[in-house]
């Protein structure tokens, strides 16, 4: 219990004292037990008063202070600093809001406002008398970061993280880095080649001694919390001996004659059993597909020094202060029959089309036929109001149009049809749309309710569509190739990642940030951040921006080697806890775990993880868990304080207050305000009525009445019979 409390009640100029009798309250509280100082002050926040408070605390050895003034949003920190400067633990300070919660909303009932203010201050006073001195929680952190995914987002973040001295582990599921952009030969807006970007970035990554790249990796287990995560990973072997002669490996790859499906080229090429995704793929070390190469006994024998088909998965434990998830996306894979996919041979997806263009340098040929007419169908696997993927993938319109421009430039005689719903070339990408329209691309708008139908007609695809731009006229297009503009979907392994790192997944199945604006790259797990398109569809630039944003946050988090957290967290009373596990169940942050204490099982709160949200406290059937600074006794004492009967000098308040004192209200300037006032003083009036009577146009009257409304000088009071216009009266 605090016994030397100081209370300061602010006039806020007249903002509070015009309605609340701060002087009287100050006098009355002086008599309360434990109150050493109780003052009313003109401006509590003024520098002079702050200095006085510091002096008071020191001189009178105050052990707690209450300031009754405005919203804590404005000045909580101001007065916490005052306490600190005076050597008082800032948790022994309570702010009571008697402006926004009292004088302002109850300006029409000053006496009641005073009573309420008294109650609020008593509540604050009672609370502070039970306050504890708490120190911030300090956590030592490791200056190392795990980056999951070595696409452009991951590599960029790794570089910026390493630059500020962090140890970075960059892990990639594939055997090669670069992600999706390596599959694109012509990236929109800049025309850059994805492979070149990947090579340059990888070179930069490798130039940092403090970045370690692991490829062919799977995450096995994640434990620990912010500052000290432990991650077990499994590295899949490449089946190439560690000391193998690289030239020989290359030779073996050249001589290999076994081909398998090529995932990288999406079926437009085959890959060898010793392969790289593409010749320049990095790291510059091929991978052996064990099952496939087993057939090539001669080759294996010839290059026995190179291969070790018995290599096992390598297990490794990493420790990291923070984790960045940048696992990217998958392209939507249409179902068989969706717009003729896999049923009509002329139907392919946009990523497939891009691979096809790159692998067909001499002409646009599909299934041996020259392609002259291409029909793009947009929003495939996206914007499904009834389906799974309700969202828009934001970059596919631009990607499709970019491809359309590219084929027109590259090949002669191409006609492109774009069957779209809305062309979403936002921002500067609009220029692509303009360019494509100018080059003669034909845009046909369809509605989700009546999507195009694709049928096989001879060697061609027949696309039937109702064009909403020509009064839903039914069109039939013969196309050599139908390109399905597929969107982005969350990665097939995102559930696995989500489970391992305990990060939530949104309704769109992408990883969810805490808040798109407040904490756009943070997850509910402190220290685990997300970047790039694993969070939702993004183009390249946007992916980089989000992952570097996350890098900045991680750099800030780890910069000093320690993290200081607010002491407002849950704590367990071990004597009451029986480990029923209910608290752990509801905790969104996974902050509660089971431990043994004094021979029994109890709950333990991970201080680094708990956010003090308080959800666990009311759930506990034994009342064994509470939140610091919001303990039962504090809350109950507040209620007691507020409920305490207030022997406010009622008579005096009724008789003398308010009328006598000139309350400062907005002055009635300019002249037109005076005129308006005069008119509405007797009878409420609408704006057209005022305009007529003052012979001033309605827009000018609106302007003035609304300015007066803004300054709380007038009040809307009912509507006219037609419910078109409000009546206005003078506000007292």
């Amino acid at each position, binding site marked *: 219990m605090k016994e030397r409390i100081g209370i300061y009640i602010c006039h*806020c*100029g*007249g903002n509070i004292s015009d309605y609340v009798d701060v002087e009287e309250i100050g006098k009355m509280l002086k008599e309360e037990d434990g109150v050493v100082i109780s003052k009313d002050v003109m*401006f509590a926040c003024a*520098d002079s008063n702050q200095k006085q408070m510091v002096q008071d605390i020191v001189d009178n050895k105050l052990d707690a202070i209450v300031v009754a003034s405005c919203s804590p*949003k*404005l000045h909580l920190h101001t007065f916490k600093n005052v306490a600190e400067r005076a050597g008082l633990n800032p948790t022994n300070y309570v702010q009571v809001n008697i402006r926004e919660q009292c004088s302002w909303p109850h300006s029409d009932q000053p006496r009641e406002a005073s009573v309420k203010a008294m109650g609020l201050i008593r509540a604050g006073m009672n609370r502070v008398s039970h306050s504890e001195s708490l120190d911030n929680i300090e956590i030592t952190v490791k200056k190392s970061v795990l980056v999951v995914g070595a696409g*452009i987002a991951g590599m960029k*973040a790794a570089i910026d993280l390493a630059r500020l001295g962090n140890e970075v582990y960059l892990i990639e599921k594939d055997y090669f880095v670069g992600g999706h952009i390596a599959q694109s030969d012509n*990236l929109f*807006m800049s025309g850059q080649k994805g492979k070149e*970007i990947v090579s*340059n970035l990888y070179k930069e990554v490798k130039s940092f001694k403090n970045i370690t790249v692991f490829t062919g990796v799977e995450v096995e287990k994640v434990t620990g919390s912010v500052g000290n995560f432990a991650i077990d990973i499994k590295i899949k072997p490449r089946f190439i001996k560690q000391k193998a002669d690289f030239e020989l490996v290359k030779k073996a790859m050249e001589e290999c004659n076994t081909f398998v499906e090529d995932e990288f080229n999406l079926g437009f090429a085959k890959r060898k059993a010793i392969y790289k995704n593409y010749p320049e793929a990095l790291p510059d070390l091929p991978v052996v597909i064990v099952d496939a190469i087993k057939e090539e006994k001669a080759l294996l024998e010839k290059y026995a020094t190179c291969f070790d088909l018995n290599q096992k998965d390598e297990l490794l434990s990493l420790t990291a202060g923070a984790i960045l998830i940048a696992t990217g996306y998958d392209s939507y894979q249409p179902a068989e029959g969706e717009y003729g996919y896999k049923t009509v041979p002329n139907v392919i997806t946009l990523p497939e089309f891009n691979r096809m263009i790159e692998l067909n340098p001499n002409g646009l040929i599909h299934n041996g036929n020259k392609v002259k007419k291409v029909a793009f169908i947009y929003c495939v696997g996206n914007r499904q*109001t009834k389906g799974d993927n*309700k*969202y*828009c993938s934001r970059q596919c319109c631009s990607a499709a149009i970019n491809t359309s421009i590219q084929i027109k430039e590259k090949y002669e005689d191409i006609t492109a049809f774009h069957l779209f719903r*809305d062309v979403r*070339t*936002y*921002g*500067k990408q*609009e220029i692509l749309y*303009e360019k494509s329209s100018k080059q003669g691309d034909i845009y046909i708008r369809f509605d989700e309710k009546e999507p195009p139908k694709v049928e096989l007609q001879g060697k061609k695809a027949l696309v039937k569509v109702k064009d909403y*731009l020509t*009064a839903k006229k039914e069109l039939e297009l013969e196309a050599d190739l139908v390109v399905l503009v597929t969107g982005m979907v969350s990665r097939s392994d995102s559930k696995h990642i989500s489970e391992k790192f305990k990060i939530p997944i949104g309704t*769109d199945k992408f990883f969810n940030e805490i808040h798109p*604006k*407040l904490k756009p790259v943070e997850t509910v797990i402190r220290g685990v951040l997300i970047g790039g398109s694993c969070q*939702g*569809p993004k183009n*390249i*630039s*946007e992916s*980089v*921006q*989000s992952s*570097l*944003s*996350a890098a900045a946050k991680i750099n800030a988090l780890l*910069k*000093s080697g320690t993290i200081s957290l607010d002491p407002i967290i849950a704590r367990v009373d071990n004597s009451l806890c029986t480990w029923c596990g209910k608290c752990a169940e509801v905790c969104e942050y996974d902050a509660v775990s089971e431990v043994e204490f004094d021979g029994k099982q109890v709950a333990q709160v991970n201080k680094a993880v708990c956010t003090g949200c308080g959800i666990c406290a009311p759930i506990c059937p034994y009342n064994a868990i509470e939140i610091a600074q919001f303990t039962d006794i504090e809350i109950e004492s507040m209620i007691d304080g507020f409920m305490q009967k207030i022997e406010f000098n009622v008579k005096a308040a009724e008789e003398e207050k308010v009328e006598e004192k000139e309350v*400062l209200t*907005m*002055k*009635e*300037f300019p*002249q037109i305000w*005076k005129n308006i006032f005069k008119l509405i003083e007797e009878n409420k009036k609408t704006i057209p009525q005022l305009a007529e009577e003052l012979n001033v146009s309605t*827009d000018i009257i*609106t*302007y*003035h009445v*609304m*300015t007066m*409304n*803004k300054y709380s000088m007038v009040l809307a009071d009912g*509507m006219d019979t037609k419910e*078109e*216009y409000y009546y206005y009266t003078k506000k007292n």
Partner: protein
Amino acid sequence: MSQNDKIYDAVVIGGGIAGQEAALNLADMNYQVLLIEKGLSIGGKMIQLSKVFPTLDCAACITTPKMSETARHPNITLMLNSEIDGINKNEKDFQINFTKNPRYVIPEACTGCQMCEVVCPEIRLDEYNANLAGRKVAYIPFTLANPRIARIERLDESAPCINECPGGVKPYGYISLARNGQYEEAMKLHLEDIPLPGSLGRACFAPCQNACTRSSLEAPVDIRRIKRFFSDYYYEKYPEAPAVNIENKTGKKVAIIGSGPAGLTAAYHLALKGHSVKMYEAAEELGGMLWLTIPKYRLPKDVVRRDIQNILSLGVEFEVNTKITDIKKLKEEGNYDSVFVAIGAGESSKLKIEGAELTQVLDCMEFLSNEIPDEQKSLKGKKVVVIGGGNVSMDVSRTAIRLGADEVTIVCLEKRDEMLALDFEVNEALEENVKLHNASVSTKVFTKNDKPYLEFISVSSFKFVDGKPEIKTVSGSEKQIQADVIIPAIGLRPASSVFQNELELKRNGTIVADEKTLQTSMPYIFSGGDSHKGASSIIEAAGEGRKAAFYIDKYLNGENLMEFEDGDKLPASDKTKVLSKKDYTFQLPVEQKLRPVGERIQDFNDIESTFTEEEVLKSSERCLDCSNCRECHQCLNICPAFAIDFSQRKEIFDVKAKSVVVTTGFKLFPPSGKPEYGYNKYPNVIDSMQMDRLIAPTRPYNNVLRPGDGKTPDNIAYVLCTGSRDSAIENHNCAGECENNPICSQICCMYSIKQAQLLMGALPMADITIYYLDIRAFGKGYEEFFQQSKSMGVNFIKGKVAKIHENENKPGDLIIRYEDITTGQLKEAKHDLVVLSVGVLPNKEVTQMFTNKKLELDDYNFVKQINELVSPSLTSIDGVFVAGAASGPKDIPDSILSAGCAASEVAGYLSKLEI
């Protein structure tokens, strides 16, 4: 002025959401950041918004925590109200010059209590509320401003009337107060500067009126007579000056020789400063010229007496009938610390022609002197000739008429239009039957048949050469007129010869003193008013008195006088700008009502009447509001925290930083660029920012209402792509502010859908139609948000709006003509409120900031991202980074991410610098 020698790690330009986010990220990484913001608060455009898509969080709730975090962060230095003058790239860092504009409020002292806003009498358009409502000129930028500090919107100017007044009086201020009926406040404002409003209200030559912007239209505002009104009002209310108890006496003593306007004003200000003051007056009453020589019909003596009470009520002592001849003796005997010599110019210049010594030739000062009773001066049956064309000559002539002269003739050198006397004085004299001989020089006085005559000759040209008049006469044009009395009024000079041993005098008798400080060669002696300037006017003399008091006070405090400037005047506002800005109507001044000539020449009573209250209102409403702040000092007087400081001036800073982050944001397309949409023409065509204000929790209106007439709209239309995806924009309407904008603005579809959803909540019965080309709902959760609005009943029409005009049958309602793209037909639709969803334009100010290196722009004038895909923050200048909408349209989440990205890239850059 150099700020300090600290080198910042980064300077962030612009305090919008991107700027704050970049600054916070850098500051969290322990970098020292300087955030420079042009506006009065951080928060950018986001803080103006209602709610934000697609989560419909209130914008304030999202952005205020960031704002306070930014304002509070120990590693961030905030510079608000500041403009970049130049950024120079050095080899290793940047030199940043910027100017911090004065707020006229001391930030540390201001508590944001808004009392200044309560009392400020002026309203201007409230930019925060997108001009839908007004705000005061003294104001808190908006409730959630951070820092929440008031600003007095005093631009870098004073109104011409204030600028012109030699006495530093603030007509612009008291006109405003007078038109609000605050006559007492008006008087008090006057008393801050000059204690003689009664006399000035009648006898000032009102240079303010010559400067009045309205004088270039019909006629100036009647400033003098407004003053006369409120001083009469005040004096009637307070016949005796309320006693003033001056606290903080300094114990210093000042003697003032002379009690004219200069002496009185100096005494007044010195007494207010706590000094003991005593005035010495040679005449039998205080007042100098006010008392002695200004005719009563122009300035009644009870008014003078009451004015003087303003000074005496401060405890100023005086001694009349005391002529001081030895200043040193005065100082020593009276133990004075300083002496102010303000003896005026009370000696008339002597006529130097033949016959000037004749007894019929009188001294004009003696003639006018109130110490000689009128009866003794009676001129019944006499012919009077007055020589000279100045104001004294008019006073003499008109006094002579009132003293019963048969005929009064003025002979003066100047042509009619060159006369020194004020025009109205000459006219009034002529009305009173004074004859005028212009361009004539008197040559002799002689007697013929016992009657005195004046001979004069016509002047063909006359000019001053080396200060001496050079007159060419027309030979043979001599004329003689009979004159029983001849009164030369050809100039006045100070009676300073008694001080010739103590002070340096000029040939014309004026006392030499420093022009700035009025200090003479004897440091303790100051001289001002007519005795220093030569014969001038009440207000000029009073102005000198005020100035003398200012510097005497500094002298008494032992300070270096040259370091101080008296007054806080700023240059006059540009009248052409005022006239071009203001939609003024022709308003003739209130006609001056003089007593009829026949009546007024019978006595010495006041010839002019005081305005009625109605006339004051009419007269003061003619003011064209040349400047914003009216310097009425209501804020100054009420501020409980003493936070208002009119002496603030621009501060120039010169700082160094290792890197620069450009977060200058964007501008909204000005809808006037699409004149066919009728913005500005029809009040119920508004832009989207205005609608956002209308639906914001902090909205100025009580509900969503039409700004044209306050009607509750029930059929609202949105016109998307206003100023976006458009290469047919008329530039001439908006002074190059809006230009062809072929790109998509990225945010308009979504904010329109957001507004539509919010409107359905605010106006459940309203129909909402969105005219669009393509709906670009591309971000996380956006498409779902779009679909939701459709299911809520928002009507989407794929159509291009061609024209908006008002419904002739139902004024205020609007008709939209559009091409329905799905049918190709031209259609019309009626709506009662139209919202133009305006696009995003580049903020081109950024290009001028960089002085020695060019910051490259892209094809659309946004800051060019030189490696958009891989390093999105890099610009063409090494060390300069870009974030937010400065590089292209962006919504809030994208801006925030780009700011985080920029912070990361800056950190990388800084770490490379260290190596």
